[in-house]
């Protein structure tokens, strides 16, 4: 039986990507885990794996097409089998705009699907062919009750709440709408504050500074997807999150000495960077401050039991992306260093995996390599805080005996969401973080 290939989740909040290339063709045999496509997500090129094995029966969309997360992008089945016609998309309300409708009208199935999914709602893309009742019997997803694939409890909740299931995106197996999808569903039409829509690029209203300047003295550059995304997220963060900031200065002499010692004899692929040590310290300190490893959702705050540290990485072509060091408090410093290096290499090559950039619970931004004394970072929503790491600098210090000597200090600033936490906790976090960096052997425990 033909199984749909679903567009996978591309990472926190990303809802769609642009198809760059199919890496497999119809008729190719694939097995679970094979990469079938490259997609330009908001932030980077992402490889799309299949989660089923078999022969590719169909692939939906040409390079350049927009693929929505959770939509059907093809079918896998047995060789010789036909792909279900009509390729009903779970998100019937938002068909991908770029490609002209390709369903062969003679099949009439697209129309049947639209008709059945209607349930009062206007069909998404009416094809011209007049419908005959018999067509409703045709094979395909439209055979599901009311034209949508949904679990019984999802149907019940939708009925009770008056939600039109054809507008809900299914995230269950094969695109099934499950309970969580209906419970989390928010009607798109509701006049939401800007932030609610921040997931979609360009959702933040453009500033009105008068007419767009033109002429020989200026160059007008289209805002890239990545820039729109950053603009949306950062505007959301600064408009909605009441940031407060705490700065401390840390003696890094011991940490640098330890690093030197650790790296002795290691080849480059294994070497531990200052950043790796900072990430480790950040994560270990978060263990003591679970409140800062939580995400604020208004009436509820979600406390994450695992600690995944987002690492802000500048992209060679401009822009910025967070790769995620998973369980950074638990994995050894050596493993952390290797994993981070590999992820950062994938950023530079534009070959990120969805997993590389999803799931961060707290973020570190390190500008130590740019010779900055200190800076403050903007929180990456919905996280509760971010650490900004400055350069290690030679500074005059007053020694315990009263004489003046040379020290090696680094300034660190934590930005914290005041809805989640208060100044004292931010300060205590930094105190613990500082202690860990200054007695760095604990990073090896």
């Amino acid at each position: 039986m033909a199984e749909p290939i679903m567009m996978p989740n591309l990472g926190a909040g990303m809802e769609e990507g642009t198809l760059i290339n199919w890496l497999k063709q119809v008729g190719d045999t694939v097995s679970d885990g094979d990469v079938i496509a490259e997609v330009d997500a908001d932030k980077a090129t992402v490889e799309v794996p299949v989660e089923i094995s078999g022969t590719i029966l169909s692939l939906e969309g040409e390079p350049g097409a927009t693929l929505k997360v959770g939509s059907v992008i093809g079918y896998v089945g047995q060789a010789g089998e036909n792909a279900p016609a009509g390729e009903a998309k779970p998100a019937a309300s938002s068909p991908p705009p770029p490609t002209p409708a390709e369903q062969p009208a003679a099949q009439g199935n697209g129309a049947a699907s639209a008709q059945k999914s209607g349930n009062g709602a206007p069909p998404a893309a009416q094809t011209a062919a007049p419908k005959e009742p018999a067509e409703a019997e045709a094979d395909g997803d439209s055979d599901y009750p009311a034209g949508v694939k949904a679990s019984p409890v999802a149907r019940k909740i939708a009925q009770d709440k008056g939600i039109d299931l054809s507008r809900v995106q299914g995230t269950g197996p094969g695109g099934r709408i499950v309970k969580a999808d209906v419970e989390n569903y928010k009607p798109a039409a509701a006049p939401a504050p800007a932030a609610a829509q921040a997931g979609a690029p360009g959702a933040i209203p453009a500033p009105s500074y008068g007419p767009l300047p033109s002429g020989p003295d200026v160059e007008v550059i289209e805002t890239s997807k990545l820039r729109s995304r950053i603009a949306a997220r950062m505007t959301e963060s600064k408009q909605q999150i009441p940031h407060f900031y705490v700065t401390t200065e840390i003696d890094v002499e011991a940490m640098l000495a330890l690093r030197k010692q650790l790296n002795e004899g290691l080849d480059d692929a294994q070497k531990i960077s200052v950043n790796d040590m900072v990430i480790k310290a950040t994560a270990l300190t978060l263990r003591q401050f679970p409140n800062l490893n939580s995400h604020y959702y208004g009436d509820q705050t979600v406390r994450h039991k695992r600690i995944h540290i987002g690492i802000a990485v500048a992209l060679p072509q401009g822009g910025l992306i967070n790769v995620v060091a998973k369980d950074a408090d638990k994995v050894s410093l050596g493993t952390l260093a290797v994993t981070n290096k590999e992820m950062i290499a994938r950023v530079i090559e534009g070959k990120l995996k969805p997993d590389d950039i999803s799931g961060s619970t707290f973020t570190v931004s390190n500008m130590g390599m740019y010779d900055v004394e200190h800076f403050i970072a903007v929180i990456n929503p919905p996280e509760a805080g971010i650490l900004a790491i400055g350069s290690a600098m030679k500074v005059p210090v007053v020694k315990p005996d009263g004489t003046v000597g040379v020290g090696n200090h680094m300034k660190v600033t934590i930005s914290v969401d005041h809805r989640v936490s208060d100044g004292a906790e931010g300060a205590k976090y930094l105190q613990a973080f500082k202690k860990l960096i200054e007695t760095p052997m604990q990073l090896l425990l």
Partner: protein
Amino acid sequence: MATKNLPMREALRQALREEMQRDERVFIMGEEVGKWHGTHRVTQGLYEEFGARRVRDTPISEMAIAGAAVGAAMAGLRPVAELMTINFAFLSLDAMINHAAKIHYMFNGQFTVPLVYRAATGWGNQATATHSHMPEPIFAHFPGMYVGVPSNAYDAKGMLKAAIRDENPVLFTETIALYPKPSPVPDEEYVLPIGKADIKRQGGDVTIVTYARGVEWSLQAADMLAKEGVEVEIVDMRWLRPLDMEPVFESFKKTNRCVVVEESLPMFSFGSEIAAQLQEAAFDYMDAPIKRVSAMDVPLPYAAEIELMALPNAQKIVDAVRGVL
């Protein structure tokens, strides 16, 4: 309340002893139950304490044991007849199903058949295909006989005492692998009601419905899943008949997802029954198909490694739970 950790075989022995002391109509019969102390040592010491009249060694004939127990029960005694292992109960199906389970009905209530058939059950240890059955669902198929399937020492004692006191015939099977497993058993006397399931672990994400040794595997799986943040609720049915579905419905309405774990075979099984009743009673609460973890649908292989592959285990349960999330 003071408790002692007792292996299940000892808790069962206490139940038998207490009931024999309480009611002189209670007696034990079966192969090797007396002088030999029982194949699984459950009746150890009882022959010495109660004598050959109340702890009767029988010839090797399950038909005779099962049939004589029916007659004795009809005549006013309360036999606890041991079938050594449930595999031999196939020889005595007529006495068990056509007689024990039906007489109360066939004689319009003039007779009751207050007997207990005890039998060791379970797979494993290379007992080969003919000695590796868990056919309890076959017996639960027929109205007229209760079927008790305890998962630990505490439950086993309280359930067996209830079975001996009940006026209805009861098949009571004891998983061999659980005989040595200890659990806290109160010093004071207690009886657990017939037909009452028990929540062995609470959780909000997925309901596991199981019994007997499935409980042990499910608890192990629950620990593994908890590390991933998945909280399962484990319903130990304790009795296949009467089947206490209320706690299952209640749990399912909370979790919307269910995995049934059974050590027995998958066709026409415990899992089929639970799944069928759930979809009838709680269709609108279902968020994923109900999955079953069963023994494989094969005669149990002899080779040790392949034998294990054919049986359920904690990892198979973890995989099934992930499959409904």
